[in-house]
């Protein structure tokens, strides 16, 4: 039985996405949006505590729980990033993503259809799931910033109309870099802890899951390297953030889907 707090968190994310989408520019709406997102994050955190108190407890290593963690981290990372960049206008997309992940997790937890990961439970599986989910969430925010950058850039280049509903290019660039510098190390640690876990489980290292994770990690090395070595920003970085996340999402969700089917 999924805790009602989990459904409540999903509902608050949905409301935040609706309010953020309706009038992101007005101050009262922005305040309501922030409060709803904060409420969703708080309720979601309570849901995680209740996961462990259920009988039997919901393990964080299940796919549905991992999706839920990603949803929570997407919203939390974004709220944290608001302290560094004025990017409230992309909040509606972030809230919609958080809702998508949390709602999918709610359905998965309800159906109990998620596949348990192989090997014994312990610290490494937990570390892997939490680190990978955190990295995934931060990189999701980075890709949203990249997407916003590309849309805004296109509108400005066309010289037809301004796009005041989106933050400035500089803000979006800064949000992308912030989320990338948070997400990439977490993803790296997630991949590393996954290796250790796989080694401990005694299975093959070169499973579909491991290979796909390495592919996604490798794709992200390109923007990270360009940023670190040359200070690359702008549309090139934005494009690599969007492509990188698309590859990561396909690798992760594709592998999970195949596991569910097989």
């Amino acid at each position, binding site marked *: 039985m999924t805790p009602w707090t989990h459904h409540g968190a999903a509902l608050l994310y949905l409301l935040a996405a609706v309010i953020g989408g309706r009038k992101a*520019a*007005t*101050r*009262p709406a922005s305040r309501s949006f922030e409060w709803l997102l904060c409420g969703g994050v708080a309720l979601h955190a309570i849901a995680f505590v209740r996961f462990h108190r259920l009988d039997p407890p919901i393990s964080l290593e299940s796919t549905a729980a991992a999706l839920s963690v990603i949803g929570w981290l997407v919203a939390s990372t974004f709220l944290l990033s608001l302290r560094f*960049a*004025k990017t409230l206008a992309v909040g509606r997309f972030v809230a919609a993503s958080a809702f998508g992940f949390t709602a999918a997790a709610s359905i998965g937890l309800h159906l109990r259809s998620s596949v348990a990961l192989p090997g014994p439970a312990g610290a490494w599986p937990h570390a892997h799931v939490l680190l990978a989910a955190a990295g995934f969430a931060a990189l999701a925010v980075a890709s949203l910033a990249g997407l916003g950058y590309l849309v*805004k850039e296109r509108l*400005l*280049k066309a*010289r037809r*109309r*301004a*796009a*005041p509903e989106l*933050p*400035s*290019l*500089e*803000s979006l*660039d*800064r949000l992308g870099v912030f989320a990338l510098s948070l997400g990439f190390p977490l993803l790296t640690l997630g991949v590393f802890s996954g290796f250790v876990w796989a080694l401990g489980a005694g299975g093959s290292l070169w499973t579909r899951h491991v290979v796909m994770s390495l592919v996604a990690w490798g794709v992200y090395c390109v923007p990270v390297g360009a940023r670190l070595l*040359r*200070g*690359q*920003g*702008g*549309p*090139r*970085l934005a494009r690599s953030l969007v492509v990188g996340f698309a590859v990561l999402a396909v690798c992760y969700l594709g592998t999970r889907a195949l596991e569910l089917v097989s």
Partner: protein
Amino acid sequence: MSILLVGLSHRSAPLEVRERHAVATSECGAVAEKLVQSSEIDEALVLSTCNRTELIASVRDSDLGAARLREFLLHEIGDGTLEPGQYYERVDGAAVEHVFRVAGSLDSMVLGEAQILGQVKQAYAAAARAQSVGPVLHRLLQRAFRCAKRMRTETGLGDASVSVARVGVQLAGELFESLAEKHVLLLGAGAMAESALHGLRDAGATSLVVVNRSRERARALAAQLGGRAAPLATLHDEVARSDVTLASAQVVEPLVRRRSLEPLLRQRHGRPLLIIDLGLPRNVESALAEVETLYLYDLDDLEAAARRGADARRTAIAPAERIVAQERRTFERWQSGLSAAEVLRDLVARGREIARTEAQRFAPPDAESEGERALERATQAAVAKLLHPALERVREEAEEGTGPYYSLALRELFRIGERPGSRPAGGEADLASRVSGIPRAEPVAGSRGGAAEPGAGKDGEDRED
């Protein structure tokens, strides 16, 4: 109790007339203080900007109050040369609506400009310091600020830019989070570029470089604007280093070439560059617009954006007017409640006074004090019972918004607020005109006649002299 507004603005008087009737910002408080020293004026506020001078007051008698405000504007602020038609008067609802429209910039020369709200706030602060505002004007101004805020947030009035210079500043805001540490390059010295440059500096830009064919002119302009001058030979390097370039030099062919600039832009690693070309012929090769991370806007683009801004603001007028009407109704409900409360208080006091007087008059000369008190209590009770239905009705009507008519009728019927033996100003004709909303046939000379201002109230109170 009435709210009055007497004033002149860019809609009614030419600049030289407005100049003669302007009040210095530092003097507005003192002028308002002087106004409330008149017995006709309870509360007053003076708003004086380059486009208007308006006296706003709360008065007990609207005719006497209007005469005093008119006299003050004509002879104490002005030199008595103001002609009928160059100033206007607004009474009650129309005055309230006018204040709301002014605060929300619906009455401004540039629709949607933000400066006027700050000026109204300054005028209110000055009047508050001079203690010339009381509960009525305090409430009126608070509603005006709320109304202006609603207009901006709910209709987007003022979001879009309508001048070429302002569009340039807005474009910079689309690219950069803040202009605080951004480098601005000024190529040439056109008036429009200077205007845009001032806008950028107001938005926080501090680093400025001036490039001009004449090194002396560049140095002089840089010194004037607090920047540094650079030779024309380094133009492409300076453009590549800048974040915003404003170009408005007199040229025969473009000075900034793609072939020279594009290689230098690679060093920017994706940092956006905004070039606003205000020159005619153009200063910047149009092929540069194809370069990634370079955003090039010329005069046509800026003028088109300014036109779109003006259109966007015009579409915001109708919803903004609806907000004004809503806020006016809210204020009038409050005002009618206030005046009904005054009437009820006065009526009860009058009843008690009559009961006491009559009890004293009819008490037998040899009666003991207890009997006299009993007679007074009985008379008080009879008066209270007689007045009760009327009081209840006025209270109910005040909530419905028709309270002022009942309050006025009670004032006239019971002669509340009059000195014994005096006649009310205007008498039955005045009462009929106020209750029906139809103006009196013979208005006081110089007051409330003439054509209504476009977009003003529709209730017959909104007239200009």
